[in-house]
């Protein structure tokens, strides 16, 4: 598998150097692996810190900026960052109003953020945490590590980010973040496996004519393999899985997300089918975002995240945001 890289070991550092060059509006600390809003800490504002393994770009580093994250901690590819990064990030963005850690529910992320929270609190930073666990493909039971965090992370970061920007205190930002997570569900499909730089070959075999339903965003196989389906059939399966779990009784924001290797042309075509499937199930769609936002390197495929919204969430969604990966209103 060919990659546009120097060596596997430097992939994350190289990307950070490239982000620094492209985004003078951000502070990119290549040595300590941090991406920080330039004007951090913003006086009186709750700081939002997230992070996770690299390979999901623009998540999280591309969501640092006004109206979203104050800092992001990129780990190695598909590997949770280490506590040192999060502690440093918390210190960098804490204005005294406290810091919210937005953590995708993976064992590694949870353990590292937990350690960081303890250390940061020792240093006098008030820390709250929200776990994102929206992936309905994983049974949330004693027999798993719990549901994975995927597309809902974007909603949590955007909506909690907008509320923090308004000056809300930590408890309210935390409560809202939790509410957004609880209002969001995702389901993903892979048409191909992805290739990590360290491994250099696809993480699993996916023969021609088959796809994986219920994949995560780390190149892990899904729960079920099926024969290839049309985009309309895939939309039905995905929307069914999400809607059955979420049971929305209000409009939703739909994130029709590409895994990285699927052309935007196909993604828009898929969005048409998702809208059709939602209309058939009488789920009104208030807003739609189509694109590669929570990716899995070069994996071909897609995921759908629905976030049920009320007036407040919709207002926060429409609020200005200015980051490399998501920008409107300013």
């Amino acid at each position: 598998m060919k990659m546009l890289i120097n060596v596997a070991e430097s992939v994350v550092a190289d990307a950070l150097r490239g982000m620094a060059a492209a985004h003078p509006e951000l502070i990119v600390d290549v040595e300590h692996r941090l991406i920080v809003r330039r004007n951090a800490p913003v006086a009186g504002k709750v700081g939002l810190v997230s992070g996770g393994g690299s390979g999901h770009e623009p998540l999280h580093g591309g969501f640092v900026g006004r109206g979203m994250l104050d800092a992001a901690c990129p780990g190695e590819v598909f590997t949770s960052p280490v506590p040192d990064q999060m502690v440093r990030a918390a210190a960098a963005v804490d204005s005294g109003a406290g810091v919210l850690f937005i953590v995708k529910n993976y064992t590694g992320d949870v353990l590292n953020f937990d350690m960081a929270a303890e250390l940061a609190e020792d240093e006098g930073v008030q820390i709250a945490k929200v776990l994102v666990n929206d992936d309905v493909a994983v049974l949330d039971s004693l027999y798993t590590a719990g549901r994975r965090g995927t597309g809902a992370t974007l909603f949590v970061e955007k909506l909690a980010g907008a509320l923090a920007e308004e000056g809300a205190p930590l408890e309210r930002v935390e409560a809202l973040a939790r509410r957004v997570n609880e209002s969001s569900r995702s389901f993903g499909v892979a048409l191909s496996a992805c290739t990590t730089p360290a491994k250099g070959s696809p993480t699993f075999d996916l023969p021609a004519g088959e796809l994986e339903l219920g994949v995560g965003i780390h190149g892990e196989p899904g729960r079920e393999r099926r024969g290839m389906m049309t985009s309309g059939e895939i939309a039905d399966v995905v929307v069914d899985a999400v809607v059955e779990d979420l049971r929305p009784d209000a409009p939703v924001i739909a994130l029709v997300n590409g895994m990285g290797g699927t052309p935007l042309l196909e993604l828009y075509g898929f969005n048409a089918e998702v809208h059709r499937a939602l209309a058939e199930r009488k789920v009104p769609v208030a807003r739609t975002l189509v694109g590669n936002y929570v990716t899995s390197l070069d994996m071909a495929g897609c995921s759908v995240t629905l976030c049920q919204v009320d007036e407040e969430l919709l207002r926060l969604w429409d609020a200005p945001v200015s980051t490399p990966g998501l920008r409107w209103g300013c």
Partner: protein
Amino acid sequence: MNASTAPGPVIDADFLRRWLATAAAVVDREADRLTELDSPIGDADHGSNMRRGFTAAHAAVELEPPQTPGGVLTLVGSQLISTVGGAAGPLYGTLLRRAGKALGDGTPATPEEFRDALRTGVEAVGKLGGAVPGDKTMLDALVPAVEALSFALDAGAGLADGLAAARIAADEGAAATVPLQARKGRASYLGPRSIGHQDPGATSAALLVAALADTAAEAVA
């Protein structure tokens, strides 16, 4: 030949530095295999995670070698936490930090003190990650290894023989993860599809135990 009468290796800082050097080398050598194991039921990074961590830990210990065995383990644990990330970083890091702290400032440690420290560390892994043996994790190698060591020492064996027994138990424990369905970590997402694959963390745990056994064996040789 009575193992307990053989002069046991001294468990001092130097002994654990030698273990670390061996462990770092074996992890480096086996990294690709660990990553391969992490592909079908994980995210294909366990080998590079472990290599990064043990390379950093080895370098840190060589740069400023701690004077006590507890000091070595604590430093290695901290280094793993600061450099590995993922699930393995906090788990192995906590294991070694807790073991190191349990050893305290004394030097050298007796085999029994060492065994107790390892047990403390392994128990901390269980607490931190919420896993129990049978969940298809590193604990499936670590727990039997500590038990085998303990059983051997209690039966009067020396450290080298005790660790040789631990190595066998760890290997068997790792191999025994193959038919299990994962209940913790990434592999649990796969449900029944996680069956039939050896757990990468249990495999790396067995490598670390083997490095310990080798270090002890060399010391008595």
